[in-house]
């Protein structure tokens, strides 16, 4: 009897598992389906001669170009330079932005001074100031990183101010009641409680840093992914232009994913870490 039961259970269990697996594979297949179609359409359109290779180089040619960039070392140098600028700018934004945001929420004068600057500066297209920054600082790393900081610091400041404002009063009251000093209150209560929203601000600032790094390189020239793309465009080398887009897209994708992972790691203690991941 026991044996019979086991076999039926086994017989039922196997197809069920297989069916579930098939569903998962089908969904995964559906998810990549449209991308595969898009890539295939690109290759076919490019080869069919509807467009000139200048307008639309074949996907295979673009991949080959990326491969040769990777082999001769250009890809590594350009990626490293772009990443260096983006991450240096981002680091400055993170430190200075959180500091300004904290100062604004603790000090009336700091709030009075920075609040209008942030509320006017945040929605402004700051990239318009790029020629001014070139005028002041030239076209090298200092100018590029300054441009990045100028652009990406606003979301960090705004998120920090909002985050600290949103910390529950009860938390602060009870900590104070239990004799926490101002310093302890800030480091052990307010900052941890505000950290998810500050992280959100940083998650906006990081891709922004990369975007500005690429635009600054395109406009100021020199090495880097953006600079290399502009050079290629000037020589009507459209295969390299398309290769540049793919390279920049991959770097952007990796940065965003890395940031989401860091958030999960850093906020492991927070209830949100147990919620299903969205990013």
């Amino acid at each position, binding site marked *: 009897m026991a044996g019979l039961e086991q076999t039926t259970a086994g017989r039922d269990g196997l197809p069920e598992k297989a069916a579930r697996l098939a569903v998962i594979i089908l969904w995964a297949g*559906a*998810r*990549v*389906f*449209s*991308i595969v179609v*898009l890539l295939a359409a690109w290759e076919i359109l490019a080869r069919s001669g509807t467009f000139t290779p*200048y*307008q639309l180089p074949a996907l295979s040619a673009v991949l080959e170009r990326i491969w040769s960039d990777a082999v001769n070392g250009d890809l590594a140098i350009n990626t490293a330079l772009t990443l260096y600028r983006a991450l240096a700018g981002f680091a400055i934004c993170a430190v200075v932005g959180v500091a300004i945001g904290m100062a604004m929420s603790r000090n009336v004068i700091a709030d*009075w*001074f*920075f*609040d*209008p*600057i942030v509320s*006017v500066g945040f*929605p*402004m*297209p*700051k*990239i*318009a*100031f*790029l*020629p*001014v920054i*070139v*005028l*002041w600082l030239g076209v090298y790393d200092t100018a590029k990183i300054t441009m990045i900081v100028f652009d990406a610091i606003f979301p960090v400041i705004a998120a920090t101010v909002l985050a600290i404002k949103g910390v529950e009063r009860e938390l602060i009251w009870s900590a104070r009641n239990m004799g926490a000093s101002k310093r302890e209150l800030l480091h052990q209560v307010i900052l941890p409680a505000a950290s998810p929203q500050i992280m959100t601000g940083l998650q906006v600032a990081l*891709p922004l840093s*990369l*975007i500005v790094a*690429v*635009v600054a390189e*395109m*406009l100021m020239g020199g090495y880097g992914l*953006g600079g290399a*793309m*502009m050079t*290629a*465009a000037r020589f009507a080398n*459209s295969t390299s*232009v*398309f290769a*540049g*887009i793919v390279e*920049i*897209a991959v770097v*952007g*994708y990796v*940065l*965003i994913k890395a940031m989401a992972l860091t958030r999960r790691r850093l906020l492991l203690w927070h209830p949100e870490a147990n919620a299903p991941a969205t990013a």
Partner: protein
Amino acid sequence: MRRTLLRYLPLLLLAIVWELAARFELVSNTALPPLTDVIRSWVELLLDGELLTNSVSSLYRIGAGLGLSIVVGAVLGIAMAWWKPVNVLIAPIVEVFYPVPKSALIPVTVIWLGYGDGSKILLIFLGCMVPVTIGAFNGARASEQVLVWSARSMGASKLRVLWDVVVPGAMPELLNGIRTAVALSFILLVSSELIVAQKGFGFLIGSLGAGGSYSAMYAVVLTVAFLGFAADRVYLQITKRTLAWRD
């Protein structure tokens, strides 16, 4: 009135510091022309019509690109939330396209459509479509299932439900996505015009800077910055009006 003045006093102070630093030559006047000179150049640019013609072509590009992206993005996002097959087909493409810095597309749009209006409109359209689509999708997906069910049970057709329940429910998130798109449209416009253009704000900034008339260059830079800021504020007011029915 007085409160607004007090609130924006820091900006006024910065302007005064700028004027004094430049007047007393604490910094070189090429790097920072006095604010009053910048204002004078602005008036001159306005009077000889150069500022006006270039703003018209820039605003046309923004209007066309942004308008297209709002229409297409909203339809696409709501369709993705409403019909699962659309979602399965489009979502991976949006996901792949999302992290691409849109400014990286500038050289490609130029390769496709040349140096004129077309390439800028295409760039703004492609870039702004992403936040609009995501906003519409998130908003429509979050529309309350209870409302949908009750509307259905009371005999509303599927299209009726879509129009009367899902679309209004998606409004707040959609409008939020459009706000991001408005800011993005100015950024994409200026960066593409700075790189290649024969007219528009970016072109004007570039040519004035190359010609060494720095106070005029500052005037145009500040104009663009102000327009971007003003567009955001006006848009916020419109949003508040549109969503007045909610509370």
